[in-house]
């Protein structure tokens, strides 16, 4: 397997990827310690969350003892790490189910939503940016810039509610929330119908960011000498723009798309709450407020690992596009 991989990306690149993956391990360990400490330091505990108004010191102590939360902090952490390395992420205090089951379900839902949004915003953002740059200062540029600005400025949860009101409540075209219909459904068309509104909402901001950066990168590239040379050679404008300028501009846009991948994952928190999408963002919010430490730990680790992974992909893609960056 490494053989074919080496053929595509070269041995140096493979070594680089491995180095980056190994470097991610201390990041994840450090992160898990920090998250664990923060969760331990903030006031309140799972027992209080379970008991609510009934949280007397006596009741809290009884529940904490049953949950194993009366042990010293480092014991708790090492028990968690030891179990995790054996694939056991523990059991959620609040949800009464294994953390791993919950996280896998939730994370795949988030990946579907965030992945779709990332594809949509990359395509739309690049297109809008190119058109805007090529037609700089024309009405097309102004219209695109206007919408891009609105996209960047509009709070996503507000946009989400607007979408629900217009498309789900007024026109009844699409379901307002959830990932699948509660009766019938459950197939791909059902998923797509539920995906459209949240994915569109989540894409808007990232589209704006990518469009702006693409426009700026394209404008810069279009001013370069080699583009003038290409034009002087008599190449037609399409070839100049797409073959010469766009490829060069992509080098500076790709890492931004990588960053947007992280943004889309993070932005999913609001969107998941508004659209009741059963993703990991909404899960983390609830887990933190109920002090469900194991669920928070597991969820943060998965999200962080995904973030590291997306950034790595973006860096590799950038290196492949720009030979100067190859190590």
């Amino acid at each position, binding site marked *: 397997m490494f053989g074919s991989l080496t053929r595509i990306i070269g041995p140096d690149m493979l070594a680089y990827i491995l180095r980056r993956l190994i470097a991610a391990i201390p990041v994840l360990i450090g992160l898990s310690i920090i998250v664990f400490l923060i969760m331990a330091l903030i006031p309140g505990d799972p027992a209080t969350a379970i008991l609510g108004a009934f949280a007397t*010191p006596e009741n809290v102590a009884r529940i904490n003892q049953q949950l194993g939360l009366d042990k010293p902090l480092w014991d708790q952490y090492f028990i968690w790490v030891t179990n995790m390395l054996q694939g056991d992420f523990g059991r959620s205090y609040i949800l009464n189910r294994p953390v791993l089951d919950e996280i896998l379900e939730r994370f795949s839902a988030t990946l579907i939503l965030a992945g779709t949004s990332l594809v949509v915003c990359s395509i739309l953002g690049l297109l809008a940016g190119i058109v805007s740059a090529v037609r700089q200062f024309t009405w097309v540029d102004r219209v695109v810039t206007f919408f891009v600005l609105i996209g960047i400025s509009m709070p996503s949860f507000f946009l989400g509610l607007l979408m629900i009101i217009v498309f789900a409540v007024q026109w009844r075209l699409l379901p*307002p929330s959830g990932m699948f219909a509660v*009766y019938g459904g459950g197939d791909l068309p059902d998923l797509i119908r539920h995906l459209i509104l949240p994915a569109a909402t989540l894409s808007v901001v990232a589209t704006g960011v990518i469009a702006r950066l693409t426009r700026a990168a394209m404008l810069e590239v279009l001013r370069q000498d080699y583009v003038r040379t290409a034009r002087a050679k008599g190449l037609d404008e399409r070839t100049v723009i797409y073959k010469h300028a766009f490829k060069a501009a992509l080098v500076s846009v790709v890492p931004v798309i990588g960053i947007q991948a992280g943004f889309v994952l993070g932005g999913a928190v609001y969107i998941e709450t508004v659209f009741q999408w059963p993703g990991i963002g909404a899960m983390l919010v609830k887990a933190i407020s109920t002090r469900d430490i194991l669920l928070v730990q597991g969820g943060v680790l998965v999200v962080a690992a995904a973030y590291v992974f997306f950034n790595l992909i973006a860096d590799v893609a950038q290196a492949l596009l720009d030979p100067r960056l190859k190590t």
Partner: protein
Amino acid sequence: MLKLFKGIAALTFAVVAALGFVAPATAQTPPNVLVVGQIAEPAALDPHTVTAVNDFRILMNIYDGLVRYKSGTLEVEPALATSWDISDDGTEYTFHLRDGVKFHDGTDFNAEAVKFNFDRMLKDDHPYHDTGPFPLSFFFSSISEVTAIDPLTVKFTLSEPYAPFLSNLAYPTGLIVSPAAVEQYGKDFGRHPSGTGPFKFVEWQSNARVVVERNDDYWDGAPALDAVIYRPITDANTRVAEMLSGGLDLMVEVPPDNVATFSNDPNFTVYEQAGPHLWFLILNAKDGPFANKEVRQAVNYAVNKQALVDNVLQGTATVASGPTPPAFNWAYDETLDPYPYDPDKARQMIKDAGFEGAEVTFLVTEGGSGMLDPIPMGTAIQADLEAVGLKVKIETYEWNTFLGIVNPGLEGKGDMAEMAWMTNDPDTLPFLALRTEAWPDKGGFNSGYYSNPKVDELLEAARKSTDQAERASLYKQMQEIVYDDAPWLFVANWKQNAVTTSRVKNFALQPSFLLDLRKVSKPN
């Protein structure tokens, strides 16, 4: 680039096609199936391990208790027990069980099953005690022994007389689960529930739905609905949007802002029901201005509770008069009127007590069970108190943190704190939060350190009596004293609300805040 355009075209086409062949997207829900919009994902479907009303709304329809609340009241009537005898000293309850009842898994309901349920919760050495924790097991902490006398007779021996025992049995923590199912699933029983109730559990898809179907063999007559689907929708606006777009038949906890939308639309019916809820401010009677009874009374005069209820809560609550909610109709003292809104009197009382311009710290929470709209309510109260000469400094905390600060006592932290309770017996709140023995250092909820020996005496006596008329009289005396002592600023009693589509018939909210769907139908 052309490829890219082709790709977009294909994607667009796919989306349009998906829209096209399944339209109309939001068809109505099918007949005889009720889709309920819940406020959150349930924690578990094991009644002994959960504490949230949200979970109880499902559980009450899967399980039965030995007794239950009579529809429309908080009074107890037979359920799995057909009758019971109470010993004269109030420490022995003997229940005669209903014959021929089976759990959904086919096993028999009998005295051994009842014993299993309470031993699992209460005995550390019970083989299935590790399927907990059981946070509300202290409701039954007065039980010293459960004895199965014969298959249809079970005796509870209490360590001391405990009058709320029957109403605690009617509470969801007293629901009876199938021992065979607990033995089979262990810690996962909460995801594979089995009871004797009107609906049988079908499936639980995490974060999407819980489905239950009609129990045709239900001992009290099979329900009219074929099935009920519970959907967790945490965001209130989204819940409203789902209701408006036809994705729900019934939604609970309608935000005050949206009640008018539904009540003005003939396609919907709005239901309201006052319940055993009290929203109040704990006043720190140990130190600071509120150690003075006149100042505590003064703030009760100073706050315009009617305006709070009308404007902030938009009519979804009523003004509270004292520590006992009117929903406990037999124990509620109807002669008490809420403290009238009288800012002039309040200002004078504060001035006379020498606290004009005194600074008080007010602990406010951002949200929480039964807390309604705590920040707007807190700022409205702040404005009213500023108007009568107090300087009010608000400190806001997230709910879990807030409980961690308030429950151990207000001393050194604040002068007043928001709080709300929903209970099932007139004993619970005052016993846990107003007695001297309930100060935080003794493990209670009396975070404001109120102490009146007469109140202690009345509450102890009421807990020991098994005669409802006698208990009622004791609670009424307690209410009068507490009203006058004003350890709290009494604010509001919440009215639970719900909205259904007009297709839903025979629905009623219960004062217990539990959801009873036995009689509900949705014929078309």
